[in-house]
């Protein structure tokens, strides 16, 4: 069950410019959280920013009762968060949302992350490895300096390949090009992906072409985080047509093929 905790910040550092790792003690959330779930953080007691901000769980230390999130500074809330000192309590609500599933029949799975979308894939990669499922991570960024999260996969011994838009490291191009290449030369039974929508749309197309099942994690503007306000709607397919699903409570993780993207949208 989700709860709200006053979580003591124990580690907070800028990993690469504008990308931060933030670790805090939240035993109840840490005990329950599954890969793909998120927490809703109230960044300030003041009325502006007003709403909580959602962040995927990047890693969890069940023994210590701590959770780490990995975030990029993009606006007012994340800027303020980046100034949060350690040893201060943080108001954290979670765990929220539906988790990734563990495809126990799969021999090898691909984890595809674009930019800060790598965040939920780190904890997932650890759980998959502990289940004995071979895991290969494909991560993309604009340039080598922004390939954050790399150190985590190195630490946990999860094999990974990289792509950069400017070719400064790994394949020059998009992470979806890397995926297309890898699908030709390596076995993949299941795909997990998180990143910008355009990337998720391409991942969906590639997976469907080759009949590979998988799951993607979506983002969206949120208010409540628990399925009450209907603010975080995303179009999904249904048997008869389409409907809006709540990213916060029916997602953020959806099956590949289930989600309708903007270019397929009526708009």
């Amino acid at each position, binding site marked *: 069950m989700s709860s709200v905790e006053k979580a003591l910040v124990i580690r907070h550092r800028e990993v690469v410019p504008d990308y931060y790792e933030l670790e805090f003690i939240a035993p109840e959330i840490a005990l329950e959280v599954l890969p793909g779930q998120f927490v809703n953080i109230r960044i300030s007691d003041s009325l502006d920013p*007003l*709403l*909580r901000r959602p962040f995927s769980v990047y890693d969890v230390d069940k023994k210590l009762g701590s959770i780490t999130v990995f975030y990029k500074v993009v606006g007012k809330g994340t800027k303020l968060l980046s100034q949060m000192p350690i040893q201060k309590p943080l108001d954290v609500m979670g765990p929220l949302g539906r988790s990734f599933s563990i495809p126990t029949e799969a021999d090898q799975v691909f984890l595809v992350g674009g930019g800060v979308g790598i965040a939920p894939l780190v904890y997932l990669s650890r759980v998959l490895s502990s289940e004995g499922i071979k895991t290969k991570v494909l991560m993309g960024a604009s340039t080598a300096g922004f390939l954050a999260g790399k150190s985590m996969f190195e630490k946990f011994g999860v094999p990974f390949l990289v792509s950069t838009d400017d070719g400064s490291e790994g394949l020059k191009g998009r992470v979806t090009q890397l995926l297309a290449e890898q699908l030709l030369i390596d076995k993949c039974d299941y795909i997990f992906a998180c990143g910008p929508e355009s990337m998720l749309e391409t991942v969906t197309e590639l997976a469907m072409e080759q009949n590979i099942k998988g799951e993607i994690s979506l983002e969206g503007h949120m*208010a409540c985080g628990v399925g*009450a*306000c209907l603010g975080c709607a995303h179009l999904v397919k249904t048997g008869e047509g389409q409907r809006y699903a709540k990213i916060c409570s029916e997602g953020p993780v959806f099956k590949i093929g289930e989600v309708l993207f903007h270019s397929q949208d009526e*708009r």
Partner: protein
Amino acid sequence: MSVTDKKTRKKARAQLNLQVNLGGMQLKNPVTVASGTFGYGFEYEPFVDIAGLGAVIVKGTTLEPRMGNPSPRIIETPAGMLNAIGLENPGVDVFIGEYLPALRSRGVTVIANIAGNTMEEYARLAARLDGQPGIAGLELNISCPNVKQGGLQFGTDPVMVKEMVAAVKSQTSLPVMPKLSPNVTDITAIARAAYEGGADCLALINTLMGMAIDVDKRRPVLANTFGGLSGPAIKPVALRMVYQVAQEVPLPIMGLGGIMNTRDALEFLMAGATAISIGTANFVDPMITTQIIAGLQEYMEECHIADINDIIGAALPQ
């Protein structure tokens, strides 16, 4: 605090009266949750004892299911947020068949919120909900476009408001609470029209119409262009409207708009509201309703007030 202190305090709390009567609806306490901000109540069960709330005002219900608006549907603004959900809901039959029985079995005081595009739709909804066990009253969301009047909002025209309230009243034995739109020049004229139509009480306010523009994309942020502003940014406007209507119309008022804490709730009660509703604040702090109920009790103890009804309207001119 010593053990005896705690005991006397508990005893004192037990003697405090928080019950209020909102136009025939008996509420355990004056703290309710606003339509559209609390789903059907279940969503908040990990955080709140929903049966302990004065009432749960459920998401707006229409006759037929509604898909709702495209995204983005919400955007934060300074000390507030804009929403254009588009009344997404599964329709009145699913509400009656699935949600209502589950709420009833939990002992929740339920106020149904209804919305439509024609006068007839409101009347049919009222008839459909009449006699359904477990509903304490009907809230009418009159901030909807009247498709037969070129999309003019029902809630902006006193003649339409009076007619609609009368049409709904004729179809139900439940207390009827029109929820007024603040997007009008004279809120008291609308309140009076609702009174003349036979309303049992009034809820005010709904959201204030607003918008936001994405400067980088050079277009409105919300897919619907316009949205309703809620949260602390609208509190002074809401409070002013409650204060004005309380002096002009002899009906109990449910006050809402930007209530974030106990002191905000007290302001509304003192402005003449018999009960209050918490909306956007639930998103910020999911336990806020429980805290405000406790906060009201603390205030009453500190000020030696035995009955919450004694502070209602305390700030109105004598």
